[in-house]
């Protein structure tokens, strides 16, 4: 519900708002909240509400796209390695160890510094280290399930590998994978906005919540709302995502 509300807010506000989130008008800079600008304006006279929403769209899309990629890679690799065992399995674990071992955010920063800024760079910076959790969980879960009695029994009954995968293994790993994927979504959201916060994110004028907070830092005392609005949006999104998963798991 909450997440849907956030998505709707981010998606619809820029369409409905009379303001352009990217057009500066310094004459209107730092206006307090008013009926015309519900959250006031930022240091360049842009409507804060519209900007928060527009930045949210970017944040959510980036995080979703990257998580989708990492989850797919992780699940496929993890399941395959878990089923195959032997060499592929060891390769996966070692690849995971290397990926985990590299300080992800720093490396992402370094990469983002070397490559030209843009969505492609963000993907390149975050995907190589993002798939690991999913891969490991999928792998561990697959291993467990594959070693459990009922799978052995099903296999002994002559079930085909694809049947095994679909009917016995997939349902058992779906839960953990979903948990991790959701955690990954939150993590990616944080990592991507961290890059923007450190000033190495998407090229302006497009920005995400991290970029908004970064822009607001010098004005933290004078106009804290500039930082609070995107921060609350980020927090709500994160909490909503987490709650959804917890609720799903309890059911």
């Amino acid at each position: 519900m909450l997440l849907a509300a956030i998505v709707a807010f981010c998606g619809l506000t820029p369409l409905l708002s009379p303001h352009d989130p990217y057009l500066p008008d310094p004459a209107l800079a730092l206006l307090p909240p008013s009926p015309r600008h519900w959250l006031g304006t930022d240091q360049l006279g842009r409507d804060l509400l519209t900007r928060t929403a527009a930045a949210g769209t970017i944040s959510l899309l980036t995080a979703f796209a990257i998580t989708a990629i990492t989850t797919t890679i992780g699940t496929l690799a993890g399941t395959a390695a878990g089923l195959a065992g032997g060499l592929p399995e060891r390769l996966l674990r070692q690849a995971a160890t290397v990926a985990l071992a590299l300080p992800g955010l720093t490396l992402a920063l370094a990469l983002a510094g070397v490559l030209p800024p843009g969505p492609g760079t963000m993907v390149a910076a975050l995907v190589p280290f993002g798939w690991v959790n999913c891969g490991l969980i999928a792998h561990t879960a697959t291993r467990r399930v594959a070693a459990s009695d009922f799978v052995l029994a099903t296999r002994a009954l002559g079930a085909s590998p694809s049947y095994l995968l679909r009917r016995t293994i997939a349902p058992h790993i779906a839960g953990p994978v979903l948990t991790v994927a959701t955690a990954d979504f939150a993590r990616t959201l944080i990592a991507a906005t961290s890059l923007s916060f450190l000033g190495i994110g998407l090229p302006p004028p497009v920005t995400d919540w991290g970029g908004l907070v970064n822009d607001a830092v010098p004005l933290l005392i004078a106009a804290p709302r500039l930082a609070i609005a995107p921060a609350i949006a980020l927090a709500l999104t994160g909490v909503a995502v987490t709650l959804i998963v917890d609720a799903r798991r309890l059911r």
Partner: protein
Amino acid sequence: MDLVLNVVLRRAVETLLVLLVLSVLVFLLTSLAPGDPAEEILRRGGIQPTAGSVAALRAELGLDLPLPVRYVQWLSDVVRGDLGLSYVDRSPVTAEIVSRLPATLRLAGAAALVAAGLALLASLRPRGLGGRVVTAVTVVVASVPPYIVGVLMISVVAVGLRALPTGGDTAAGAVVLPALTLGLAGAATLTRLLRADLAQALALPFVRLAAAKGLSPRRAVTVHALRVAAPNAIMAGGAALADLVAGAVVVETLFSWPGVGQLAISAIRQRDLPVVQAYVLVIGAATVLLLALADLCVAVADPRVRRP
């Protein structure tokens, strides 16, 4: 016992291989980065580089050798503890990293304490008041990036209440805010995983049987379930610690904590590649060893994972 030894040996060999792969990646990262290091150094030295001086320095640095040869040379230097010289001030990188490492370890250690303590609290008594509060707080904090939590902590606790220092590591208690910022975020992930596994473990027949036979819930959790749930949690814990160290980059910058993370950020900003390289390598190697250790613990804790 033999089995365990076998596992240890195999893991040791694998760990060495991983370290090797890591070193190759780190080496490639900086040697393939755009820009010629020789030219970079000369310019920083204030000389308008000429083709001749660049070529001379390239020869001196061994940059004109083939990549594999350079890698072997670099690796042998690294093994002997020589991480090269900073482009910016020509000081030895090893000394700089070594002098800053304790601060990062102190911060990561304190944060790990916070994270592990809270996660255990929340997992062992998920329905208790403490557990609920901890869960709620950690979920919220983990959903908010550390930079926002950090800024909030500085504004409220340090500036507003004047209860704790805003940063640095000289004043007493300075570690508290950065450690909380870092630890709270780690706690949520750890709690979620630990609790999910615990719930699964508690539902296992043998645990339920034990409970039915009159075992107190506490013993059911601590003796049986925790043991079963431990492997995933240990792995997750390893990963979470790695996250802590990576996350320390942002927190160290926010709180002016003089660790390697702060060093790395300023090195990236100044394109001081040897320092970036050293940071990635050192943190990477440390994490590899940590994960190997966690892996071993899993092997020891869960007989099902242990294999000949």
